[in-house]
């Protein structure tokens, strides 16, 4: 690699962010060297400053961020001191960007192809007609369905995975020397992610484009990058080529990242047949208006057990949870609690019935009222369900805070905005526990968290389950989480249960073809994993294409 020309050189890059009218450092001196045609993986947890570094290496800062020191040199041009016009002439033309959420980053008011051709036409690289022809060619190369026609659709008419590929095509429109990929597959389902990964890798290879690939997913970066750099809270931890980094990480922090995936709680013994379940979903069929979403869904959740409900977005996982809690009364079938049928509509359930089933949400940020203190947030259900007031209530809130391993005196008067993501999620757990339920629905509770933090939450949930004999329904699309925490697994697809059983059985073949596809799509740490998988299955037997074949 070292024999190739240096394309991008970042030295001692310092970035500051503005909060409460003062500038605080967010990145303290990062060095980065990228050669032509090379892919550098930038990993770290959220808040590590990955995206900010990625954008700064394009000479771009978001509002409220500024470059406080260091240099960014792109092919002989000093991007820190360059004029806005100079930077504009490079952006889109020689340096391109692929954002995390293609659905949010395509302008909803214009067709894909109009957005694709904008950069080449504005930069005077190609005429509109040439660029359109080229777009169709790129769509074909990225294996988008109907390449001739797909560009003439609006963003909302195209699926997430396809949009992400269209955005990669758009980044390629001027054949840039450098592309910044900012978590391009984080928002996608696993089966969709694998297709996008394969096509991004292909096209970067074909045009010999240099890239910075930003992600928090080690297994993903292992497939994509030649070299990996690890960031922690704005500091550089270490850098090495991919294979060395995976097999022999030097720093403790890197090692801990690598180790996270190994957390696994042993499966509990199967319950005796005939034992009464805590929650039983019996032949539930449900619809939103006229659109049917669930078809004849049945499964049981027993005391002290965790049932993981797995599936991709739109498979009906959350809808099932809504049926159980009575937010969406099913059309047919019913929900049983300890053997007796619950009223379908939550408004008809008694306070005690409501108390038994609680929920923890994916986004602790939006699930906690930002204007209430922690004490009020947890105290509310304590008062509402248990009728405790005054000193008793406060005592109970303190007990709950201890249970979730947060020091009561320190946290009880804080607002949610003064807590970290993981702490907020713990408050969500305490609020659910406050009702003293038998059963808790955890809806993607760890998917917005970093791996280390997520692991802490999973361990806490496992501990609470053992102490309080709780039953969990764990909604997730992440199979690593399933492996870590569940006893039983329910696989859902298009509103139907395709397979269910004990965890250990589910992770050993033979599988239902869809389960098999899901399992096969989860990236592994092996840098050759994607290459091998493609060789083994062929490009048409992975991802959405394979799902389509199945149905």
């Amino acid at each position, binding site marked *: 690699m070292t024999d190739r020309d240096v394309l991008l050189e970042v030295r001692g890059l310092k970035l500051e962010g503005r909060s409460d009218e003062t500038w605080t450092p967010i990145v303290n001196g990062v060095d980065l060297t990228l050669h032509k045609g090379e892919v550098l993986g930038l990993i770290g947890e959220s808040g590590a400053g990955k995206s900010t570094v990625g*954008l700064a290496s*394009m000479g*771009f800062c*978001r*509002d409220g961020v500024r470059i406080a020191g260091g240099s960014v040199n792109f092919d002989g041009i000093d991007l820190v001191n360059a004029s806005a016009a100079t*930077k*504009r*002439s*490079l*952006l*889109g*033309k020689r340096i*391109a*960007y692929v*954002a995390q*959420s293609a659905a*949010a*980053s*395509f*302008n*909803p*008011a*214009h067709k894909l192809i109009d957005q694709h051709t*904008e*950069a080449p036409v*504005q*930069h005077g690289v190609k005429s509109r007609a040439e660029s359109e022809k080229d777009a169709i060619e790129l769509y074909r190369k990225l294996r988008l369905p109907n390449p001739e026609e797909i560009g003439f*659709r*609006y963003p*909302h*008419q195209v699926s997430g995975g396809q949009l992400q590929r269209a955005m990669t095509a758009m980044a390629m429109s001027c054949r840039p020397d450098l592309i910044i990929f900012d978590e391009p597959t984080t928002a996608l389902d696993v089966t969709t992610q694998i297709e996008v990964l394969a096509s991004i890798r292909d096209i970067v290879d074909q045009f010999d484009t240099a890239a910075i690939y930003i992600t928090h997913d080690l297994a993903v970066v292992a497939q994509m990058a030649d070299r990996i750099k690890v960031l922690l809270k704005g500091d550089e931890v270490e850098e090495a080529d991919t294979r060395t980094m995976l097999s022999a990480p030097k720093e403790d922090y890197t090692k801990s990242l690598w180790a996270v995936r190994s957390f696994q709680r042993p499966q509990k013994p199967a319950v005796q047949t005939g034992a009464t379940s805590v929650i039983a979903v019996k032949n539930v069929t449900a619809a939103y208006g006229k659109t049917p979403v669930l078809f004849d869904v049945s499964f049981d959740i027993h005391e002290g057990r965790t049932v993981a409900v797995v599936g991709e977005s739109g498979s009906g996982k959350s809808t099932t949870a809504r049926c159980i809690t009575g937010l969406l009364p099913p059309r047919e079938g019913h929900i049983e609690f300890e053997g007796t049928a619950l009223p379908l509509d939550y408004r008809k359930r008694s306070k005690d019935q409501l108390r038994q089933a609680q929920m923890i949400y994916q986004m602790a940020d939006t699930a906690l009222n930002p204007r209430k203190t922690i004490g009020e947030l947890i105290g509310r259900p304590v008062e509402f369900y248990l009728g405790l007031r005054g000193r008793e209530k406060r005592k109970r809130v303190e007990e709950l805070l201890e249970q979730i391993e947060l020091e009561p005196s320190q946290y009880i008067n804080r607002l949610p905005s003064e807590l970290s993501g993981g702490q907020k999620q713990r408050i969500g757990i305490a609020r659910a526990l406050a009702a003293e339920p038998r059963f808790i629905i955890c809806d993607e509770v760890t998917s917005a968290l970093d791996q280390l933090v997520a692991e802490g939450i999973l361990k806490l949930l496992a501990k609470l389950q053992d102490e309080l004999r709780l039953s969990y329904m764990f909604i997730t699309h992440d199979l690593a989480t399933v492996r870590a925490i569940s006893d039983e697994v329910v696989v859902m697809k298009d509103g139907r249960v395709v397979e269910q059983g004990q965890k250990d059985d589910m992770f050993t073949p033979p599988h239902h073809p869809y389960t098999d596809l899901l399992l096969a799509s989860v990236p592994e740490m092996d840098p050759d994993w994607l290459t091998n998988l493609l060789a083994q299955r062929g490009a048409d037997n992975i991802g959405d294409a394979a799902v389509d074949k199945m149905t």
Partner: protein
Amino acid sequence: MNSVLRILVQRIGLGILTLFIVSIVIFGSVNLLPGDFAQAILGQGATDEAVAAIREQIGLTKPFWVRYFDWLGALVTGDLGVSYSQLMFAANMGGDQLIPITTQIAPRFYNTMFLAGLTAMIAVPFSLFLGVLAALYRGSVFDRGANIFTLSSISSPEFFLAYILILFLAVQGQWLPSLASVKPDMPLGERVYTTLLPALTLTLVVTAHMMRMTRAAIINLLASPYIEMARLKGISPMRVVVKHALPNALAPIINVIALNLAYLITGVVVVEVVFAYPGIGNLFVDAVRTRDIPMVQICCLIFAAAYILLNLTADVLSILSNPRLRHPK
């Protein structure tokens, strides 16, 4: 396209229903007003027989609902009735040629629409332009200047603005006539010239709202990921605002424009009086002064219809500005 059509039909149905309810409110509240209209027409010295005859003639002896539906039925067939001032003229002066309200109101209506249209043609592009520039250079001297200018013009009473403009443009400058006395046979150019001063006054009144909404709606979008994407493609700031932000900011802007256009039709009373402009506003003021009930009712109904129609149009346009509805999956 089906869903758009359904929404359209729904909105139009709602509009008609609103208009119907408004007509009941207008007719009812005008009937609650104290005083005997027949007495008012004939004056103090009228005999009881004459008053009774007039009451019979204009239908005041019938019950409320019968009168309402007679009135509504006539309206629907395009018969707006005859104003009391015409009846009074006929009763006192003799003669049987009664001029219907339709004939009285038509030229006035045309004049008001002309003034509103002219103002809209100046004010809408002007405020969009100012709003876009203010969003583009937000925080700059231009932005603050535009904000102060539009805010102070909306905070001043209309007649004050009108007199200021008359002072500078008509009295000192002698560029524009201070009286906007348009005549039916005026050629277009002269008509525009004559109407320009009231139109400018109204422009000053409505610009602030529209300009500030344009600015706010655009700035609201500037933090969104697709705007960042456009900037990362190296697109010029002006193009980012006009091509990427503005189309997505249209819905709130259209709604504010519609409210202001409706104001141009219903709120012109003061300006029409100041400039002696022969529009509906002036007619309305006269009708109220002379207790000319049928005329007041019709004027109110026209104002209400203008409001409903413009808001309906705004609703439909902002629905159509959403590509998700225009191009379903």
